[in-house]
């Protein structure tokens, strides 16, 4: 008996042949073929009599609890398209530079405040510039301004999962492995790291007009919100939802 015949008979026994005439003829005419057919049929009968394994109620409950616990604490992050990632990388870099200039600019502008007074009047520390022409006041003003720079957040693109910065500057790209993630403020000082598999879909973005790649979102543990921004307007939060139950965060 050829392998082809064996397979034909096996398929015949399983009822998978559209045209079974050739297989039927083999089975009828050849004792070996008939034995092969019977063997397959017998195994199929045994398998058909098997009942399906069932979980006990306790096992089922444990399964639900464990799956819920496992997915509960995970970040739910929407993977951004490469294009939008680039947009955000550049936006983050530009924002970091801008914030840096805004933060340290007044220090350098002190001696030439007359030249920059129009600009610095709109910058942080501008209130202190008002008395810049007074020598004593200038010294007094310069110190707290510099102090504010030192004590305040250091705007920069984040590295790893450690983020510092303010509303804009902490947009950035995390580690090499996390290039798909853009992280916004909220991870500051946290030890939270992006999940190993960052290929997630956000679960709480009902009601948003979703365009491919135009939302940046990240979520985290417990009551930290998932926030949504549009790539062309990262300063304006569109919506935010708590990751654990998808309730909306009040504006």
């Amino acid at each position: 008996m050829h392998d082809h015949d064996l397979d034909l008979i096996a398929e015949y026994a399983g009822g998978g042949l559209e045209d079974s005439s050739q297989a039927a003829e083999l089975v009828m005419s050849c004792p070996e073929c008939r034995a092969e057919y019977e063997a397959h049929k017998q195994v199929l009968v045994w398998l058909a009599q098997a009942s399906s394994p069932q979980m006990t109620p306790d096992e089922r409950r444990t399964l639900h609890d464990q799956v819920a616990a496992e997915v509960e604490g995970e970040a739910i992050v929407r993977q951004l398209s490469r294009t939008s990632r680039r947009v955000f990388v550049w936006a983050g870099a530009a924002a970091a530079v801008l914030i840096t200039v805004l933060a340290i600019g007044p220090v350098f502008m002190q001696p030439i405040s007359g030249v920059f007074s129009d600009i610095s009047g709109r910058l942080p520390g501008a209130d202190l510039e008002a008395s810049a022409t007074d020598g004593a006041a200038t010294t007094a003003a310069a110190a707290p301004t510099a102090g504010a720079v030192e004590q305040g957040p250091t705007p920069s693109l984040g590295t790893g999962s450690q983020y510092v910065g303010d509303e804009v500057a902490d947009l950035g790209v995390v580690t090499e492995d996390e290039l798909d993630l853009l992280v916004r403020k909220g991870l500051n000082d946290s030890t939270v790291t992006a999940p190993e598999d960052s290929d997630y879909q956000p679960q709480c973005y009902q009601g948003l007009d979703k365009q491919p790649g135009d939302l940046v979102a990240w979520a985290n543990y417990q009551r930290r919100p998932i926030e949504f921004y549009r790539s062309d307007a990262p300063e304006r939060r569109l919506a935010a939802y708590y990751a654990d139950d998808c309730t909306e965060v009040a504006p």
Partner: protein
Amino acid sequence: MTGADLAASLIGRFVAGDRRAFDDLMRAEEDRVFAVCMRIMGSRADALDATQDTFVTVFRKAHQYDGRAAVSTWLYRIAVNTCYDILRKQKRRPAEAYPEGFDPTDTAAIDEMGAVELRPELEDALARLPQEYRTAVILSDLHGLALPDVAEVLGVPVGTVKSRVFRGRRQLASIIGNRPGSPNHPNNDA
């Protein structure tokens, strides 16, 4: 709405942000997933681990479901791959998974434990099949998947699936047929 439509709808709702749809999907499919895991892994504890990992993966990868295959096929694929991963990590065969003191031929023990729903000799024979034959037979002949669907689950051509299923059945018949006390054994009067 058919079961397949319902599952696809639940996936769609979940991906769109409805977290409860995931719970519904899990409840609808967990028995099926557990059953296939149980048969591949051979032990309840491992099957439960595999079922848990399968649904965690579903949670993470739901957005990757593209609708080309039925949800059940996609779930089977995740479940089978999860089982294989666990088996690889354990580096042991499912037949070794019986608890200490458990006799797979003791029907009372089986019923009490609820672990093995197949006839003991068939369970034992299945465990002795090469893994790829066993999974193919489980999916095709125990879970009733069409051969093309088994091929989709396993990521192999249909011809390969046929070969595995047929050889698996042949080996099962051979193993069981040569066991004393089995229905086909020559010394069995029954």
